[in-house]
């Protein structure tokens, strides 16, 4: 048992070392940490904004007082972008939760049982991977009403196929291992094998994929908000861009669209780099 544990530790140590050799992955990790810090300490960084600003503050370019400038209502953009980080993380977390709750079981059952279970599970997965999901999400958001939790729910309900597919291939690989065969012959219940042994051993690629689901979720949320389906009560980055587009100040007041766009890109790039770094570290074939 002890020997096994030290083998496991060694394995994770090697993966960790390999991760830190990959420059992009480290940059991504730092970016993700920055995002979390900004979200946690948002109240200490900037005051939250609400209502209307003063007329003299409408569409001011960046200054010492408003370092990202102000919007068409005279509100400080720096505060909006900082507080938008919280919304993005909230959406990202909810989406991953919902997508994992649907995608992981479908992938596990498909990978473990194979045969018609897999045909059915992966058939459904492929249908959702094929369809144009943004128009579908637009319809759902227009019907359900735009509150930030609804938006996260909708994005989550359409984000599971990625996870299901990765989970299936990881689970299928693990299922072929001898220790699963041993568990089966010991008479352990199938559900326990699937959710205990297979899931734990297949967890690494699934975790990697969750970071990419977070990144995609933020792009979807921004797109929905930009198209006017955002929560009217919160400041997400897409919502700020929607306001910029609607007020016709997208180009004339460059700061209005620049900073929220940079925030989206920073967030998405960080999570994607992190995911890529982890994938390279985990995949021995991709390693030199």
């Amino acid at each position, binding site marked *: 048992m002890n020997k096994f544990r030290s083998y496991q530790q060694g394995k994770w140590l090697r993966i960790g070392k390999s991760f830190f050799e990959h420059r*992009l992955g480290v940059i991504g990790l730092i970016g993700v940490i920055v995002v979390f810090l900004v979200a946690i300490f948002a109240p200490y960084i900037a005051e939250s904004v609400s209502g209307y600003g003063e007329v003299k503050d409408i569409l001011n370019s960046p200054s010492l007082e408003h370092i990202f400038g102000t919007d068409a209502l005279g509100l400080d953009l720096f505060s909006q972008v900082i507080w938008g980080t919280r919304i993005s993380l909230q959406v990202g977390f909810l989406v991953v939760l919902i997508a994992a709750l649907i995608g992981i079981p479908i992938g596990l059952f498909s990978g473990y049982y194979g045969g018609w279970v897999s045909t059915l599970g992966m058939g459904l997965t492929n*249908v959702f991977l094929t369809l144009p999901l943004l128009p*579908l999400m637009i319809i759902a958001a227009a*019907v359900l009403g735009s509150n930030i939790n609804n938006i996260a729910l909708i994005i989550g309900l359409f984000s599971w196929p990625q996870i299901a597919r990765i989970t299936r291939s990881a689970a299928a690989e693990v299922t072929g291992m001898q220790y699963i065969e041993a568990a089966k012959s010991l008479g352990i219940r199938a559900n326990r094998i699937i959710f205990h042994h297979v899931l734990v051993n297949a967890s690494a690629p699934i975790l990697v994929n969750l970071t990419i689901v977070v990144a995609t979720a933020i792009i979807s949320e921004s797109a929905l908000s*930009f*198209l006017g389906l955002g929560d009217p009560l919160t400041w997400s980055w897409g919502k700020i861009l929607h306001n910029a587009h609607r007020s016709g100040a997208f180009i004339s007041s460059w700061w209005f669209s620049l900073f929220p766009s940079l925030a989206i*890109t920073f967030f998405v790039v960080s999570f994607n780099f992190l995911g890529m770094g982890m994938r390279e570290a985990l995949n021995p074939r991709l390693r030199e």
Partner: protein
Amino acid sequence: MFKVLQKQLIKGFITFFIAVSITFLILRLMPGDPTTMLIDPRMTEAARQRLLVDFGLDKSLIAQYFLYLKQLFCGNLGVSFVFRTPVSEILRERLPWTLALMGITQIITMSIGIPLGVMAAYKRGKLVDQIINALSILGMSIFIPWLGIMLLFLFGYILPIFPIGGGYTPGLSGWEYFLDVGMHFILPVLTLTIIYLANYILFTRASMVDVLNEDYIRTARSKGMEEKRVIWNHGARNAMISTVTMAGMLFGRMVGGAVLTETVYAYPGVGRMIYDAVGQQDFPLLQGSFIVLALSVIVMNIVADLICAYLNPRMKME
């Protein structure tokens, strides 16, 4: 080949069936009944009832569902709330613009992305590979509307080379019209290309890395074959099989990008129409757009799978 086609057609049909069923379900989740939106509140109860009967809304949900399917297969997508004209007519005008946009982007991204991905895989771990990777991820992480506006600002406003939005200048005909449409086309295509290029690069790179570890590559090398031929004829050809499969799926995702791009450029396609329909709560139009786009994507997937079968000698044998 015929067998492949048959299988793909069945798959496509099931996908389409699921798509239309989901839209039906989503739209029935709507609070209140559709008449509250369609009808003037001053209308009498009797008139409201008659409209309910006219639209088949007095029937059970299951009966409504079959009615909806029947109408759909006759090509009837309902009537737009806002324009009061059949949705299918509106879409017939809009769809070619969007399909052209996506088709051309697809061809460009493929012809640049696949060679870059092969190169990155061949030089993996080297500086070239890292730069290609970093730029790819950066490209796919940019928010499309902002990229669109910036390109418009740079090439439509500061350097007025291209027209600022729209799909064509009214009043032109013949060769001039053709050129004009082409000029309006370039910035939207460029926007979509920057965003979706990464998918091809990263995907080709990943499958090429796998392919380069295969035995047949080692065999080809040990035969003393020229390295260029090993990479392109043996490696890239096999890596392309999975890339082309992904190309089909990418069509679905590219629709999302097309909606945003068309919105920014006020382009006369389905995407911009979806944006307008959202603002006007025009549900029949939204539903029709989704169904038509889903159908286009399904057809593209069938085409991609057929190309795949053609590329893959193992599949040809079957």
